[in-house]
C-alpha cells in the first residue's frame, strides 16, 4: 500500500463516519388527552417534530419517552401518521409500535413516567430494527409524527390528561437515529473510492 492508498482509505473512513453519525430529535408538547374506545383503548398525545429538520434521519436506534397517565397498565406508545381514529390507523399500518410500555405505579394517581430512566444515568431504550426503520422513514418522508398510547384491553379506562387546573401536562419523546448521507457525501465517497481503486489497479499492473 502506498501513501496515496492510505490517504484514500482514511478519506473513506472519514466520510463514512459523517454519513452514519447520530442524530438526536427531541420535543415536548401538551398532551391532547382525547380518548377513543374501540378495539383499542387509545389516547391521542399529539404531533411532534413538525418544526424540526427530519430530512437527515435514518434509522431510529434508541429513544426516551415521557407521558402523564392515570389507571394505565402496560400501554404501548405508538408513533405514526394520523391523529383521529386509532383503530382504522393501526389496521392501515399507519401506526408503529415503538416498543415502550407504560404503567402506573399507583392506579389512583396521575403519574408522569419517564422511560427507560434519567438520561444522565440510563442508556436510551433500544428500538428494534424493523420499528426503527419504519419510524425513521416516516419522519424523513412526512416531517412529523403523531403519538398515541393504546392497549387492546377493552376494560381499560386509562387516561393521559391534558392539564391539571391551569398547568399543562406534557409528553416528551427523544429519538436517536442514524443520519442518512447527503448526495454530496455519497459523491465524495464514491470519488474517493474510485480514485483509490484506480491507484491500486495501476499499481498492480505496474
Amino acid at each position, binding site marked *: 500500500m502506498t501513501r496515496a492508498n492510505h490517504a484514500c482509505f482514511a478519506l473513506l473512513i472519514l466520510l463514512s463516519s459523517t454519513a452514519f453519525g447520530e442524530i438526536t430529535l427531541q420535543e415536548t408538547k401538551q398532551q*391532547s*388527552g*382525547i*380518548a377513543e374506545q374501540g378495539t383499542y383503548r387509545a389516547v391521542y398525545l399529539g404531533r411532534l417534530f413538525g418544526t424540526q429538520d427530519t430530512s437527515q434521519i435514518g434509522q431510529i436506534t434508541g429513544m426516551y419517552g*415521557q407521558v*402523564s397517565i*392515570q*389507571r394505565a397498565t402496560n400501554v404501548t406508545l405508538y408513533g405514526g401518521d394520523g391523529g383521529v381514529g386509532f383503530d382504522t390507523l393501526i389496521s392501515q399500518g399507519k401506526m408503529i409500535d415503538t416498543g415502550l410500555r407504560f404503567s402506573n405505579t*399507583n*392506579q*389512583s*394517581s*396521575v*403519574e*408522569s*413516567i*419517564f422511560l427507560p430512566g*434519567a*438520561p*444522565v*444515568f440510563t442508556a436510551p431504550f433500544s428500538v428494534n430494527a424493523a420499528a426503527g426503520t419504519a419510524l425513521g422513514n416516516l419522519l424523513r418522508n412526512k416531517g412529523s409524527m403523531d403519538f398515541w398510547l393504546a392497549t387492546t384491553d377493552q*376494560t381499560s*379506562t386509562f*387516561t393521559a*390528561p*391534558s*392539564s*391539571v*387546573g391551569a398547568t399543562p*401536562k406534557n409528553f*416528551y419523546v427523544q429519538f436517536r437515529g442514524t443520519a442518512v448521507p447527503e448526495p454530496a457525501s455519497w459523491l465524495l465517497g464514491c470519488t474517493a473510492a474510485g480514485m483509490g481503486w484506480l491507484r491500486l489497479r495501476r499499481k498492480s499492473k505496474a
Partner: protein
Amino acid sequence: MAIARLFLVLLSFSLLTLGGKDAVSFGGAISSTADQNGFNFLLGQTGAVSKIGTFEFSGPADSYSQVRLRNWIEMSPNSVGANAPILVFAKYNVFFPDYSIIFGPVVTTNLSVENVNPVSNGIEDRQSAWVNLTPSQGNALRSIVASDPLGRVDAWLYSPTNRDFSTPDVDVSTELTPDGELIETTFVFTATVELVPLIVPEPSSYLVATGLSYVFFRFRRRSRRVPEEGVHDAS
C-alpha cells in the same frame, strides 16, 4: 325600654318562625375538606364508581337540607346529562363495589358533576351549585354521619353508564433538567363537601315558643296601655 321591646320583638319573631316550620337551619352550612382518595372501581360493563374521600361532620343536626361539592375530577367530554357521575354518600370505610349491593346505608343525591364550561380533557377543580336534599336523603345522610363516632362519611361519584371519570389522589410530575436528571414534584388533590344542617324542634320547643309569644303580646299590650294612661293623667 326601647331596646327591651326590640329584643322581645325579635325573640318573638324567631320563636314564631321556629314554631311554624318542621325544621330550621342554624348558623349556615358546615363544611369538611379532605384529601381525595382516587380509588376507582368498574361496575358491570358500563358503570364505575370513584371514591372522592372521607369527610367529617360534627355539630348538631337532625337532618341536612342542601349539599355542595368541590373536587378535582377528570372526566370525558361526554360526561353530561345522564352520563354525568352523581354524588353518593356511604358509611365510612365500607367498600362500595356495586351499586346494587348495598353494604350499609347509601344515600344517592341529585348532585351530578358535568363536564361543561369549559369542556376539558384535563383534571379540573370544579365547584358545584347548592343542591337540595329531600327529607329522606337528608335523614339517611344524618343517620350515616351519626353512626360514626367521629361523624365520618365516605363520598363517592357514581355512574351506571359512564366509566371515564376519576377523582385522583395525587399528581406526580417529573421534569427533565438540562443536565438529564429527573425532578419529581407531588400535588395532593383535595375535595370539600358542604352541608346545610337542619334542626327539628322538640315538642317542648313549640310549647316554649307559644308560651313566650303569649307573654310577649301580653307585655306589649300592657306597655302600650301604661303610657296612654300616663298621658291622660298628665292632661
